């Protein structure tokens, strides 16, 4: 299917949400570079960050082509309130348990979303998604091992994990915030099912994991329509960091 056949606004909403998610979590991961609790994790989080920023670059590339805009301008030159990542990624870095909890919730949700885009009718995206799925499996595996480790460790590790999950509860399902013009994407065969259905699938996937680890399942989201809006102060801080060099010399060629 050609781009011309699909309303740009529908693709824009989809690509922007995915690109911003990967961009923001990539920068959050990179906050651990140099300060992770063990050397292997320092390397792992840096590698994850590199993967996610690479995924964001590819997605911003598709968006830039669609809109005829510079992908770097889309990535860096928006004000914080114009980013469309999910609120799950709005929390401050926090401790290691927070990082693992957030990443597990995100990676497990992202896997469900990617599955619903694989084999879609718009080849530029479905081709990329096929590749992303292969890479993201490593992320989910890695963070899943850590979730198990923290949950099984009676004492401080488990307590911190529970505290982190409690903080994330209201935003846990925000990856599945309904997209603007979601129906158009489904009719065009780009997205297989509505976000509400993907959220159901996600709960089915993580349900047994949370039950096995005796962790409380995230509740159904309230105000899900604002799940990619109203970004928190912690994101404004992160935005200030990741745009600081770009803003220091507007219009420069790097």
């Amino acid at each position, binding site marked *: 299917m050609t781009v011309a056949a699909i309303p740009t606004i529908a693709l824009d909403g989809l690509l922007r949400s995915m690109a911003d998610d990967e961009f923001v979590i990539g920068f959050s991961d990179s906050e651990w570079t140099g300060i992770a609790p063990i050397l*292997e994790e320092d*390397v*792992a989080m840096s*590698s*994850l960050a*590199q*993967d*996610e*920023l*690479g*995924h964001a*670059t*590819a997605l911003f590339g598709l968006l830039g082509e669609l809109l005829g805009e510079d992908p770097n301008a889309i990535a860096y030159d928006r004000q914080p309130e114009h980013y469309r990542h999910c609120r799950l990624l709005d929390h401050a870095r926090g401790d290691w348990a927070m990082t693992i909890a957030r990443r597990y919730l995100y990676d497990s949700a992202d896997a469900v979303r990617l599955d619903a885009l694989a084999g879609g009718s718009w*080849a530029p995206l479905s*081709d*990329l998604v*096929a*590749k*992303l799925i*292969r*890479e993201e*499996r*490593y992320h989910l*595996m*890695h963070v899943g*091992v850590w979730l198990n480790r923290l949950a099984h460790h009676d004492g401080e590790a488990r307590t911190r994990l529970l505290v982190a999950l409690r903080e994330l509860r209201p935003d846990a399902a925000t990856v599945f915030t309904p997209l603007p013009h979601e129906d158009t994407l489904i009719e065009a065969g780009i997205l297989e099912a509505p976000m509400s259905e993907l959220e159901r699938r996600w709960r089915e996937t993580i349900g047994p994991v949370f039950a096995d680890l005796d962790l409380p399942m995230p509740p159904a989201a309230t105000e899900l329509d604002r799940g990619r809006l109203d970004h928190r102060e912690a994101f404004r801080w992160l935005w200030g960091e990741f745009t600081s060099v770009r803003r220091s010399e507007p219009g420069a060629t790097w």
Partner: protein
Amino acid sequence: MTAVAAPGLSSASVREALSEVADPEIPVVSIIDLGMVEQITVGANAIHVVLLPTFVGCPALDVIRSAVETRLLEFDRPLDVRFTYRVPWTSERITPEGREKLRRSGFAPPARARHDAPILVQLSAPVRCPSCGSNRTVLESAFGPTQCRAIYYCAACRQPFEAFKPI
């Protein structure tokens, strides 16, 4: 890999030239060894080369594209070098020669990539130590100094080593 030739210049010559383009991160292997060259088309007016990124976020892609363009300058034709995701690169594309070159330079070649098996199962499959050949090795971390490598430890020769990830 497919190759389409035009009179005067064969795609085999282009392929031969590309076998000298080294991977920037592991220069002992070429982009041909890694299976990154998906298509070579020698057209009437241009040479078209389609490459596959090993990882989406690989920072070496621009360097590789530019190395390919530089190497093909001698053919004196317009060049069209591009990357595609139409065919996903997998570690299965590394050629037998490429695997052997990796092993000789201290990198264990990737275990068989099985997309139906959990990653942890794949990474836990025995990986032969590239130094002493022992199978008494253990995964230390799925993440290494580059996106495509994991870190193992050999209990026999007591050396850490890197292995290509099955992907």
